[in-house]
């Protein structure tokens, strides 16, 4: 099959579908400076986040891995890392790790520049402008789908997503995998009740055991804390909408992953080690999820939404599809693909998947998604490992 898309080849042979400059603050204290620089540059994004200091242990590593991953995403041509100077997530260390991709990376600390924040913005802008000029020299070339990493996301789900938009995404995920590419399914809280099926699809016993341990470990944690997660799933709203059991609900979610074999479970923001379908540890908040997908190297994300979500990602374009006719109408400007044609009986799931495939190819080739056009650049890093502080309260 001669399926190709147009992209930018990076020095580490990864392929970007966008050619952005990323301004990454190593610490929250310089977010505003990063934003000011990005605002004055063409096609630049500020990776604003609330972390980077006062973190230690696994909490620090998780944030660090995510920021390195975001800078390393092939949709980014070059990176300017900005530190304040006194934080524990050092700009130089972050820059050095992104530099492993061999892409242009520069860094500086605001406290090292005489003249304060205004001088720092000017300094950063000078570096950014230089990178922008170099980036503009690059030409797009055709690449096959083995170069693609696809992220699978759903948010604001309703009872219709699982029978329309999600299975259509599953067909696309399988297609990408068949073409030699990679696909990632996050949101492990929505695998619960279907782990036996995920285990059946595991490529080996080790992967099967990891899937089992992830879910049972989570349920045990909750039991230990006295939280009856399973007693509240499906939710009253789910039941009203027709979902009878947790299995049925999770099946709707994992339908996004199609039928491909599962290569393994990734840590949050961890890049896949091989091609094929991967699971990612992430608890189900859309923005954290999509941040983790972009940090793992996803160049594009397919997101289904039944009730309607406008959100996007600063690095990976997010293609929205919606199976609910009312939402498609009410929030038309936030939806890229109207999957309500399935429940209206106008299109089969397979026909809708074909429409989605064409939309995805256009997006890969440079067409902006609705979230891109509207400027949605949401970013949040999952603090899964702030163990010393977990469940602390004053009483």
């Amino acid at each position, binding site marked *: 099959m001669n399926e190709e898309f147009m992209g930018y080849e990076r020095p580490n042979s990864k392929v970007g579908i966008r050619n952005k400059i990323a301004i990454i603050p190593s610490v929250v204290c310089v977010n505003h400076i990063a934003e000011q620089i990005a605002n004055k540059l063409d096609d630049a994004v500020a990776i604003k986040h609330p972390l980077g200091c006062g973190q230690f242990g696994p909490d620090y590593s998780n944030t660090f891995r995510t920021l390195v991953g975001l800078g390393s995403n092939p949709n980014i041509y070059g990176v300017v890392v900005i530190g304040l100077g006194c934080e524990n997530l050092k700009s130089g260390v972050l820059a050095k790790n992104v530099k492993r991709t061999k892409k242009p990376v520069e860094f500086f600390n605001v406290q090292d520049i005489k003249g304060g924040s205004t001088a720092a913005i000017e300094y950063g802008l000078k570096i950014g402008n230089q990178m922008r000029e170099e980036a503009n020299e690059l030409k797009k070339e055709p690449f096959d789908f083995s170069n693609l990493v696809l992220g699978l996301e759903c948010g604001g789900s*309703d009872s219709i997503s699982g029978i329309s938009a999600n299975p259509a995404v599953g067909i696309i995920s399988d297609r990408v995998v068949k073409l030699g590419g990679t696909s990632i399914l996050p949101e492990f809280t929505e695998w619960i*009740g279907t782990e036996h*099926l995920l285990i059946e699809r595991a490529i080996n016993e080790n992967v099967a055991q990891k899937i089992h341990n992830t879910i049972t470990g989570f349920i045990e944690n909750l039991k230990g804390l006295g939280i009856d997660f399973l007693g509240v799933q499906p939710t009253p709203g789910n039941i009203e909408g*027709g979902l*009878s*059991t947790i*299995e*049925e609900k999770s*099946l709707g979610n994992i339908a996004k992953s199609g039928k491909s074999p599962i290569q393994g479970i990734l840590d949050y923001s961890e890049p896949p080690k091989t091609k094929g379908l991967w699971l990612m540890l992430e608890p189900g908040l859309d923005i954290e999820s999509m941040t983790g997908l972009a940090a793992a190297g996803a160049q594009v994300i397919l997101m289904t939404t039944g009730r309607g979500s406008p959100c996007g990602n600063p690095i990976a374009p997010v293609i929205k599809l919606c199976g609910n006719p009312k939402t498609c109408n009410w929030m038309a400007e936030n939806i890229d693909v109207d999957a309500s044609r399935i429940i209206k009986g*106008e299109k089969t799931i397979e026909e809708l998947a074909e429409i989605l495939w064409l939309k995805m190819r256009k997006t890969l080739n440079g067409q902006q998604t609705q979230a891109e056009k509207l400027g949605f650049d949401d970013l949040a890093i999952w603090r899964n490992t702030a163990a010393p502080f977990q469940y602390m309260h004053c009483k």
Partner: protein
Amino acid sequence: MKAKFIVMDTKDNCATALEDIDKGEEVDYNGKKFKINQPIPLGHKFALNDIKQENFIKKYDQKIGIATEDIKLGDWIHTHNIISYYLKELQNK
């Protein structure tokens, strides 16, 4: 013509309503014509054949629960006549 319901896999024994279906309405699934026994709201399920108590309900060619009572062709399938097999197993542990 707009389909009234969708069957996610040919091996399934339930269908999902794509619109509210009235009690007594006749539906046709692959030439099998039968009556709907209770009102089925949009997004809810009904049986495509008789399902005995303790037998699995299948959607997406997967088990989504087990019948807590005998379910007849055309019956509404929901929390009143099926439960999570997963939860049942977990409770038995």
